[in-house]
């Protein structure tokens, strides 16, 4: 008899001497980057490589300001430049071979950049590579590394509006050169979907609790699903294929973790499987099942979407502190790295994902 459910195995665990906020795989390699800040208040980037069941520190780079988040999403596979947002509101794009000065740098926001995402790089999707940043100053800005100093799109509160912190941003709907969408989640529970082709707000909703993380299941297809996680242990899965003029998108919500769900990440190799990371140091692996009919006719004969259901495949508790970041390896199915607030980073292997 062998274990049939996918198992989440903590393959390697390493204790670090700094607070780590984010960890990202370097594409096409067995290395990943950890970002955080030292106790002395300076930022740090560390590159680790997996060798023989252990993590070897390849490089350590110290920077002036603590680094909150990073992405490889907008860079080409040859260059593999890392775009980071720091506590000061600066967006920097680094060449990790030559990290002394950034390839691109701009003071993007007045306050800390909470979240960053990139699209158009790594051979995924069409269109220009762009980076989106969301900050505590309530604005969401889209940057192109070919344009200095000013963002290509700026989503800001209207005059006189009290600003709410933007906690998370994600790109999606980038299936051709022109189309692109940015989804932003705010601390008062607002989720806003911006269409960059029409330069307008396409949809917004409020899920009552602050939105910690949003992610589309795939960036480079016609928007299919969006998962939004929030405080108090709830997450919502929206079916993005059918938009009703008044009701918006259909959704299913699930309560799990009993604490803040810090992060959601979809498996690059299967867009219906995603993992959520919780404030109690646990990880839940979920699978989304589509309903029999994805659309149905509403009362006024207008199509509306039908949400499916979510099944819990596996869960594991790794630590007592929140797991703040999670990243699947795009090259090896089931390999992922997660970092948590107990100053440690873990490499996990999730087995049996191909039979789920």
């Amino acid at each position, binding site marked *: 008899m062998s274990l049939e459910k996918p198992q989440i195995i903590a393959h390697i665990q390493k204790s670090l001497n700094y607070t780590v906020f984010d960890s990202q795989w370097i594409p096409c390699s067995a290395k990943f980057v950890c970002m955080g800040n030292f106790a002395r208040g300076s930022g740090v980037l560390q590159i680790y490589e997996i060798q023989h069941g252990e993590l070897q520190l390849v490089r350590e780079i110290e920077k002036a300001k603590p680094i909150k988040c990073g992405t490889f999403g907008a860079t*080409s596979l040859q260059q593999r430049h890392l775009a980071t947002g720091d506590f000061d509101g600066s967006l920097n794009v680094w060449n990790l071979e030559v990290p002394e000065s950034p390839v691109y740098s701009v003071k993007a926001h007045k306050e800390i950049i909470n979240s960053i995402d990139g699209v158009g790089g790594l051979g995924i999707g069409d269109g220009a590579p762009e980076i989106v940043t969301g900050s505590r100053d309530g604005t969401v800005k889209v940057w192109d590394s070919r344009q200095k100093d000013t963002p290509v799109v700026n989503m800001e509160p209207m005059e006189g509006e*009290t600003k709410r912190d933007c906690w998370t941003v994600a790109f999606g709907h980038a299936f051709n050169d022109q189309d692109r969408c940015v989804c932003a989640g705010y601390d008062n529970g607002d989720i*806003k979907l911006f269409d*960059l082709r029409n330069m307008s707000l396409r949809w917004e909703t409020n899920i009552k609790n602050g939105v910690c993380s949003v992610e589309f299941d795939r960036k480079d297809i016609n928007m299919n699903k969006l998962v939004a996680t929030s405080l108090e242990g709830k997450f919502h899965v929206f079916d993005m294929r059918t938009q009703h003029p008044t009701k918006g998108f259909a959704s299913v919500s699930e309560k799990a973790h009993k604490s803040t769900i810090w992060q959601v990440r979809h498996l690059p190799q299967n867009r219906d499987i995603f993992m959520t990371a919780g404030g109690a140091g646990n990880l839940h692996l979920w699978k989304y099942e589509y309903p029999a009919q994805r659309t149905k006719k509403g009362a006024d004969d207008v199509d509306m979407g039908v949400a499916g259901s979510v099944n819990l495949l596996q869960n594991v508790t790794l630590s007592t502190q929140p797991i703040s970041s999670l990243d699947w390896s795009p090259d090896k199915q089931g390999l992922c790295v997660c970092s948590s607030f107990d100053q440690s980073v873990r490499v996990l292997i999730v087995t049996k994902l191909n039979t789920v």
Partner: protein
Amino acid sequence: MTDRHPSIAPPLSNHRHVVATSVYVSLRRESEMPLIVKDHTWTQNQNTVYISVPLKGVKPASVHVTCTDEYLKVSFPPFLFEVFLFGSINEERSEARIGNGVAVFTLQKRRDESWEQLFTNIDKDKQKQIREQAVLKVQQKEAEKSKAKAARIQQEKKYALETMMKLENKERDRIQKMKDEECARATAELDFWRETQRKTAEEKENQQKTRGTGPQDNQPVNQKTVTLMRNTGDTTSGQRSRKQTAKDLPAPRSAGCIQISFTPRVFPTALRESRVPEEEEWLKKQAEARRAVDTDLAELDDLREDERNPDWLKEKGDKLFMSGNYQAAVNAYNLAIKLNRKIPALFSNRAACHLKLRNLHKAIEDSSQALELLKPAVAANASARLKAHVRRGTAFCELELYVEGLQDYQAALEIDPHNAALRADSDKICEIIQGTT
């Protein structure tokens, strides 16, 4: 002595206490002397003595045998048979058979000899001694036996527990092994994948070296796009489709700005910050206050309709206050309060009037009353509370109760930390306090 008996018989030297009747009987018998049995028979050969004692109709279950190496006692109430043996016997190897109306004892002699008689003649004291010894011995044996039994039970329990633990451990180990196997397999795959990564990376490097540098950028400078050259032999983990030709990237997006607004709430805080229960309470209180009208006052009969409306009266009072006619304002507020005791603004404004009229105690009372009505403390009634605190603080200070005044000013500062005038005032009070102490 082993006991072989066709029907139920108590094992030898077993103090099994019997049913009430026998106890009763034995009690009765102990007050009387038991009947001594004398019609026993005995035979012997070289190494064994056979004694046969008739049971005289007593049930085998009530037969009680006590036997030591020199003494045999058979007690079956109301009869008693005892014999002080001529020679010593081996008690362990001797047998008793009780049944068919007779008890047959097969005693193994210690020394193979022929006994002249069954009894020995010993004096009373010796007899008594031997009897006591016998009883003791039997007790001892009993104790030992029960101890042995307890020990055996303990042993068995321990064994059971150990086996259980072993089984559970085995189960756990099995599961752990499965997990480890999975882990090892996954690690092996990982290493293998890493190796392939490395090899392809090396290959790519070598190929790039042999090709020399790629074609120079001949794109217009302001575009700054980079041509991507892909090696045709590149098969790096082909999970995504590769573009084989050089790609031109579209121009940067023309700048755009999207203005957004945030979801309004009755109270402008996110759910986690809102103190919803308190806020609801405050809203309810306000609604109630508006409704409460105390109408059973005789004096109201000669009032105009307007003058029965607390809101109208409040406005009148406000206007009178603005124009400096504080006493009249107080009257208006008095009447309004008579109509509706639940509106905090009335008390607060009356406090301000009293302050102007230098009725300091009344001012303090009224602002305290206002603050009472302004519970629970929420964002919506912050400014009202601020005013009440300031008025009360001022009144205290005028009365030279500076410490109480300072408390109120500090409460006010908590509500509105950015008010410079407040801060200046509270600093002044601090100084006065420190000056006088």
